[in-house]
């Protein structure tokens, strides 16, 4: 991609302008995420860089862990400020988020894997139509899905229950599993299924002993996608969850709308770290799966 040595000065200028532009866009993409991390360690109850934080040498007075303590529900005097009440809501939200997220992930992964297996059979009728319907929750705006589900669940009394929220999240998360597992099934050698069956394995045994180990990377990354979908989801939770089903996103939403406090940034920092972790895992899994299937790494 480097410039050839015969490039004219004009070409050089263009080239460096282009590189600079790309750098700016990368900065635009990533800077907001990293701007919040230092602010979450600030003493000030406002979401800004204080003078103490910017001074050199660093002023230890300007930095603190008080908002993190507030987040985990520590209510000692140095933690609470007049504008930021102490509450246990963040911890309750975390518990609920993990609870809803993990159950939704398990169901969505099971359903999504089965659907992907069925869809990747060569003689599946109405393949395109089924795929389009399965993927639709990903494309249809969340607000419409949420409104539709709210009306529907209101009829069958599932609004404001854990079951309702979990089922709604399953519907949202399944397409992600379908897509990732379908991608791993490309290049899966169906002869292996036949071989297993001719050696006397029942279909269930074939699935667990032959198919699953091979497509496991796809299943796991699908499950991670499903988890993050449910974990991040706020629109459905806003409509369908009562105070009992408070989740992290819902609490963040309430936090941004009512009391703008640095505690939100602490939670945001934790979520950024979580997403870095998930991203790394998915990336490693993808490479492994490509190796397993004998596709050259890109």
């Amino acid at each position, binding site marked *: 991609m480097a410039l050839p040595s015969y490039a004219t000065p004009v070409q050089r200028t263009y080239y460096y302008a282009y590189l600079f532009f790309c750098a700016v866009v990368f900065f635009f993409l990533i800077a907001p995420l990293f701007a919040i991390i230092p602010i979450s360690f600030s003493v000030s109850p406002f979401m800004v860089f204080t003078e103490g934080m910017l001074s050199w040498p660093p002023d230890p007075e300007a930095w603190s862990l008080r908002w993190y303590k507030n987040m985990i529900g520590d209510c000692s005097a140095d933690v609470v400020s007049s504008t930021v009440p102490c509450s246990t809501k963040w911890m309750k939200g975390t518990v609920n988020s993990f609870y809803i997220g993990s159950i939704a992930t398990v169901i969505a992964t099971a359903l999504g894997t089965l659907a992907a297996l069925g869809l990747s059979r060569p003689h599946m009728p109405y393949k395109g139509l089924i795929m389009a319907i399965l993927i639709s929750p990903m494309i249809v705006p969340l607000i419409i899905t949420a409104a539709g589900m709210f*009306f529907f669940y209101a009829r069958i009394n599932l609004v404001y229950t854990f079951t309702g929220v979990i089922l709604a999240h399953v519907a949202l998360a399944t397409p992600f599993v379908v897509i990732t597992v379908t991608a791993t099934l490309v290049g899966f050698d169906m002869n292996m299924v036949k071989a297993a069956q001719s050696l006397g394995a029942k279909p269930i045994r074939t699935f667990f002993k032959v198919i699953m180990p091979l497509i496991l990377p796809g299943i796991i990354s699908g499950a991670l996608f499903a988890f993050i979908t449910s974990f991040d989801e706020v629109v459905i939770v806003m409509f369908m969850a009562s105070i009992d089903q408070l989740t992290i996103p819902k609490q963040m939403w309430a936090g941004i709308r009512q009391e703008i406090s640095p505690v939100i940034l602490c939670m945001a920092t934790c979520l950024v770290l979580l997403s870095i972790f998930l991203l790394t895992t998915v990336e490693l899994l993808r490479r492994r799966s490509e190796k397993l299937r004998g596709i050259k790494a890109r």
Partner: protein
Amino acid sequence: MPIGDMLFRSVDDSQINSVFPNTFNEYKKWDKEKDELPPEEVYKALFEELAYGEKIQIGRALTRMNYSKSGWKSLIKTTSREIKKAVKKDELPNNYKDFLITANEKWADPTFWYAMGQMVNDTTPIYYWNALDRTYDQDQNVIMQDENRRIYIKTWIKTLKISVYVTIFCLILGFPVAHLLANLPLRYSNLLMIFVLLPFWTSLLVRTTAWIVMLQQNGVINGILVWLGILNDDGRLQLVYNETGTLIAMTQILLPFMILPLYSVMRVIPKSHMRAAQNLGAKPAAAFWRVYLPQTIPGMSAGGLLVFVLAIGYFITPELVGGKDGKLIGHWIAYHLKTTLNWGLCAALGAILLGVMLIFYWLYNKIVGIDNIKLG
């Protein structure tokens, strides 16, 4: 299923029919040409249904009636109070029409009776007309709402406008980046890919919060501009809680959806094409324009459609960053769902949005194929 239910709700008008079945039956027999006011039977049926109907159901029906003409609620309430008194004293009136008109003289006002005409059927398109700022006049013609009650058309236009802008900005910002990623050696491009994928994986709310922190009056961007001396301290820009904020934040949030499809298309374009074009005498700009760009059109259309479609339905970011004038149509759907409980209108707005979406979805499927969506 839920979507189907929503579509049904958007035209459903049966609740009110279950409350006033006889009134509406009699109403349908009323010949509007002949008499100015409906006949005695209509008044009688209304009297009986108000006297013996279930209170909760009537309450719900009232809410519905108020959508078509304000004033129904108070009218029915005062009337049913009078009716209850009469029933208690066991004094059934001889002439129901006179009784109701004495209870509230609005029953002699034909406009209310005309408004009732909108409700007598089990299904109604009124919510759809409302969603487009239109309503019925007395003769059931569709007319525009009053000037100061027209909000939806403005919001629809704003939603489309912002979506188009976001798509264009994403394309301008995303194209060079995707090009760079596709042409760098793998080692570097995988590394740089993290910059694209990390925002993609991070919670939407986190990114929205981050933008509020960046853009607010004492925020990072204003701070830097003041520090650099570009702005003075009183002239800080109002970047957030308006359309500008919505645009900036949505562009950053949706940018990965543009870069990823573009990247996957650009990666398979052989580099030799550009060299061949230049060998044949094309200037670099011409070679890019006539050889490279046409080959990236599938990626541009895929990314563009994806961003556009996601942008029209966006709710969280405009709601938090948009302030008063940056709100999009999603805001009204949520508002009618949660605050006014006008579910019919909410469902109609949703259905229209869904219709717009489906058109683009279909286009997307035609151009790219739905099973070509890739994640990361």
